[in-house]
């Protein structure tokens, strides 16, 4: 399986990359989605800009109460980083659930986010964490929330010539859990639920639920979050809240799972994620 011919450039600075992207080139990060698509000729870019040699895009650092993660940090870097594991465990645990070890060694956070696969794992966590995504284009940087960023299947707010530069997640002390139903061959999430819960005085003070795989785009299940906040977080409270997770959603249907089954999975896995998160909440 050979992709169509293309030009290849591997710049070493971000400015150079942005200039090339402005000229119509396609960004290549880890290539774990793009290269299979090119081999199947579902994508045939004429010019690839390899971001893999841009050192200023590959970092994980803490800055004023948040973790800043460069676009080309690999899933393995995110999953194994002591900083992410201790200060934003939801993101580390989600990264560890992606694909397989070879994919996590190559695939990148920025690439996965920009690709916006409806079954990708990261979007659930980024929604639940209310993450910010920094985009770089010819005109400089702009920052958007995860909720704004993901628009539809494989569709984001990225404009022509723009790229993902960085993802910002808060330092997070909630109880968290990511629970997914992997498609057995690909490992993609048929449904994936990222949950965060904070408790004080025996009451749930904050609940955040990010959903991926269910619909064309990831989302926050705000009705379920509201139903849980203010309760004791008992099994019955969780069950009531989880029942709302798929309400009104236009669920995807394919050979792996019908829309009704996906909705059912979303309810069950929201329950599991919330129970696990509640158990870890202080």
């Amino acid at each position, binding site marked *: *399986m*050979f*992709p*169509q*011919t*293309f*030009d*290849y450039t*591997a710049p070493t600075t971000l400015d150079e990359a942005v200039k090339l992207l402005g000229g119509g080139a396609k960004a*290549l990060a880890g*290539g*774990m989605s793009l*290269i*299979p698509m*090119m*081999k199947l000729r579902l994508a045939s870019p004429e010019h*690839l800009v*390899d971001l*893999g040699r841009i050192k200023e895009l590959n970092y994980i650092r803490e800055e004023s109460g948040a973790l800043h993660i460069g676009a080309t940090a690999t899933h*393995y870097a995110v999953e194994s980083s002591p900083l992410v594991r201790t200060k934003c465990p939801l993101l580390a645990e989600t990264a560890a659930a992606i*694909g*397989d*070890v*070879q*994919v996590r*060694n*190559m695939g990148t956070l920025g690439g996965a986010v920009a690709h916006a696969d409806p079954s990708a794992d990261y979007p659930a966590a980024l929604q639940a964490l209310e993450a910010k995504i920094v985009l770089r284009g010819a005109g400089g940087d702009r920052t958007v929330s995860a909720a704004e960023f993901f628009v539809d299947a494989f569709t984001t707010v990225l404009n022509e010539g723009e790229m993902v530069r960085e993802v910002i997640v808060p330092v997070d002390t909630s109880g968290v859990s990511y629970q997914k139903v992997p498609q057995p*061959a*690909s*490992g993609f999430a048929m449904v994936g639920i990222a949950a965060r819960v904070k408790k004080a005085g025996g009451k749930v003070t904050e609940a955040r639920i990010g959903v991926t795989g269910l619909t064309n785009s990831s989302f926050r299940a705000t009705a379920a979050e509201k139903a849980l906040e203010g309760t004791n977080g008992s099994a019955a409270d969780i069950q009531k809240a989880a029942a709302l997770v798929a309400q009104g959603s236009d669920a995807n249907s394919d050979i792996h799972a019908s829309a009704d089954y996906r909705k059912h999975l979303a309810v069950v896995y929201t329950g599991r994620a919330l129970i696990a998160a509640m158990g870890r909440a202080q």
Partner: protein
Amino acid sequence: MKIHLTINGKNYSHDVEPRLLLIHYLRENAALTGSHVGCETSLCGACTIELDGKAVKSCTMFAVQADGAKITTIEGLANDGKLHGVQEAFWNEHGLQCGFCTPGMIMASKQIIDRNHAPSDAEIRHGLEGNLCRCTGYQHIVNAVKAAAAAAGK
């Protein structure tokens, strides 16, 4: 495009098309046919090699991306005719039947042990999720990885 790589400690340099996949470079340009082309869709892991210390599927990257990298393939594991510990363990524990998946299995297993000196069964299975064995020999493979880890720890 001219690329330079170090494969199993030897220098290689070729002029290649950007679309040439690394697995084809290894097999056809470098004449190292130990890494196998199984599914070609990033699922089976038979093409797994080590790139700058990380196990990757060489069917899902372009040779040009590996320019300047240090690569180890299955051919590079044995030293002076002495098998690598993981190879030895696969032999002793019958971790293969037909052997097609074995080069990839061994490279992925090496990564597991490099990162975790005493992996549990569950950790081994998690680490081998990217490799398929159609002879369904998984239990023997898991035994082999455990044996290799134990031998390396001695």
